[in-house]
């Protein structure tokens, strides 16, 4: 299974992988993450570049939690973004997830941005990312970078195909 590949490649303790570990660990997880990937493109193939992270995130707790950002050895800035009317911007207050609900981070919608890349992200690069929440423990992931065009046709201009001044994160 892909899950086991991810797990073993990460060479990290299984408990970190609340999202992708088998049932025993998952039952205790506050947050599960599935289908997570990072986009490789001409915007991520150089230092200083940027890219988006996409995934399905499920809140397993009994209260609303908020995805507020994260940390990665690849990027000093990990920010929660939205695309409204084709324009990408920082999502103030983070992404709220109601108890038992799943939020889908996808191209053209809500997503996590890695900005000011310190290392290149190419197709097949493994990218570490720790997602941080208020109301739940952080989740560590090891993501695969892909150039898949999944979902890009749903918006114009897109964050990866046409960066605009609004992409500068709010500080």
């Amino acid at each position, binding site marked *: *299974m*892909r899950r086991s590949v991810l797990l*073993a490649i990460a060479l990290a303790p299984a408990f970190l992988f609340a999202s992708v570990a088998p049932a025993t660990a998952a039952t205790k997880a506050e947050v599960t993450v599935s*289908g997570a990937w990072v986009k490789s493109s001409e915007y991520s193939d150089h230092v200083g570049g940027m890219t988006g992270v996409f995934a399905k995130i499920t809140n397993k707790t009994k209260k609303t939690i908020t995805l507020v950002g994260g940390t990665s050895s690849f990027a000093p800035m990990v920010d929660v973004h939205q695309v409204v009317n084709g324009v990408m911007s920082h999502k103030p207050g983070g992404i709220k997830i109601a108890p038992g609900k799943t939020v889908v981070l996808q191209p053209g919608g809500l997503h996590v941005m890695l900005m000011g890349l310190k290392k290149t992200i*190419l*197709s*097949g690069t493994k990218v570490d990312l720790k997602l941080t929440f208020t109301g739940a423990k952080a989740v560590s992931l090891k993501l695969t970078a*892909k*150039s898949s065009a999944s979902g890009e046709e749903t918006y114009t201009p897109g964050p990866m195909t046409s960066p605009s001044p609004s992409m500068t994160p709010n500080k």
Partner: protein
Amino acid sequence: MVSRRQLLLGAAGLAGGSALAGGGGALAAEAYKRGFAEAEAKGEIKVAKATLPWSGKHQGGVEAPAQAHTNFIALNLKPGITRDDMLRWMLLLTEDIAALATGEAVLADPSPELIVGAANLSVTVGFGPTLFKKLSLEDKMPIGFGEIPAFKIDQLKDEFSGGDVLLHVGAEDLQILAHATRALLRDSDDFGDVKWIQSGFTNAVGTNRPGTTQRNLMGQVDGTDNPEFGSENFSNQVWIDQGPAWAIGGTQLVLRRIKMNLETWDSLGREQKEQTIGRNLHNGAPLNGKNERDPIDFEATNEFGQKVIPEFAHIRRASAKSMDELFFRRPFNYQAVSADQQSTPGNLESGLLWTAYAKNLSKQYVPVQERLASFDLLNKWTTPVGSATFAIARGVKPGEILAEELFA
């Protein structure tokens, strides 16, 4: 006493009770019926749910019966691709294979609903001699691997020959295979350009009893003389056991696209056809025997003192002259509209994607092919139009990356 009602309840997996009211029986029968219907529904999609192992000492897609549909895909490296790039490509492929072989869509699949199961999907990854040259990895070539010599019968076309990287994808279902093929090529797009895709087929699941040797489009039972899956012979003939570590547990593949001249073949009498091969058409038995698996007797003679299996017969020329000449062969059928001007109805071309797997192609396969090229009556009706060799990497354990030791 155990009542029929309780038996039904037990069968339905409900809790039994000794004092059930009258209505309980109907409920239990309902549950039983439901259970039966569920089992039946599962059976209806058993082809989709069938899986083959993708991890282990060997890659999938070699020591297993051929699936109904198969795509051989050769890619050439894009300019400037390095060993580091290869590692990232192999990582993507390894993750894709792990997903697809277990019936899951690959990561970031825009249409994951198309993967309704694995349908015995397998992917086998290999590398052509040109890849080793381009990446200066000649010292990591397996023993006996390289380009095979040109044979005088060959009329090879570049569009069916060579290639740096092989992806061989097989599945019992063509729609799953098509989507899986796209997924693998999408994730290969940053690294390689497709040089050729050759699609083949054999009978679908449920058309033959398991273990039946397939027939080629000439009508012959084709592939009888093979080592058994799981046998020591298979292992000894096929799996590489010395040389560079990345290939130990791997093998060497030669793919030959063999065009059949079916129109002239069809005009032959049945006896001539059988003499040409040395086996009968009814069940593939050697002409000296009755059953497919009867031992071949090349010395047997008829009442006129002539050899029962003629000197020119294909099985005589193709048979191993020493233990070194044994290997695993597997033919896939193909049919395509020919690009050439032909005299066939509809310009239809039929043939074989003929494969041989050996731990050392030079030692095991080449002498046999040389013998066939020099004299085999079957050559009158067959023409090799494509040829490629690939070194197949060893299998991976979950967490490893295909061919990591080759490119690291």
